């Protein structure tokens, strides 16, 4: 039962984390002086804590379920790698957001143009790995 509750908390954290990432990526493409500071606050107090909770609950599930040892296959190691890349992508777009707010530069950010499709591709691969455990 505890495992199921932690799994639910993990999924909830993932939903909040990914929603927050999508918001940052969208607003970097269409920034405005009114929205970026509030998006930065949202990222600081909601999205980043959700990412940390996703890690914490995920590590807990891995330990409780024995996935880190012999129980976990190649899919689990690959999933962790993809989660790290996704977290790095979040760090990158958050850094760009903070830079824009600091420099009061409200032009569309070309460097994060591909952040949304790349993020979606990574999330799709993670969901496939977790549900099928095929590899």
């Amino acid at each position: 039962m505890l495992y199921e509750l932690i799994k639910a908390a993990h999924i909830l954290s993932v939903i909040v984390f990914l929603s927050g990432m999508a918001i940052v990526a969208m607003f970097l493409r269409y920034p405005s002086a009114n929205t970026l500071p509030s998006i930065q606050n949202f990222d600081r107090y909601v999205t980043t804590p959700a990412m940390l909770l996703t890690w914490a609950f995920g590590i807990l599930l891995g330990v409780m379920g024995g996935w880190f040892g012999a129980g976990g296959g190649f899919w689990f190691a690959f999933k962790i790698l993809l989660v790290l890349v996704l977290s790095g992508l979040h760090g990158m777009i958050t850094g760009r957001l903070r830079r824009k707010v600091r420099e009061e530069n409200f032009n569309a950010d070309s460097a994060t143009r591909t952040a949304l499709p790349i993020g979606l591709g990574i999330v799709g691969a993670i969901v496939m790995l977790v549900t099928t455990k095929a590899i």
Partner: protein
Amino acid sequence: MTSEQELRYAAIAEAVTLVTLVCIAVPLKRIADIPAATSILGPIHGAMFLFFVWIVIRSWAEGLINGIGAGRLLIGAVIPFGGFINERWLNTQFAQGAN
């Protein structure tokens, strides 16, 4: 808390967990045969290391440090006590930038 302070504090926290793991938990496991020490501190340090890598990427994208600085911080993060040296380096860098 500013982005600069967050990066410095993350460097210290990562360095503290690494030193605790290497200097206390590993000897407890090897010498005193207490494996629980590494079982507890290992995941804590792992999570802290991930957070530090994340905050280094963010700081690089934010323009607080350049690519060479990010590399230096990541190398220092896997060397015991390297994080403390990097924290002092960051402090100097940010103080020079402020002047």
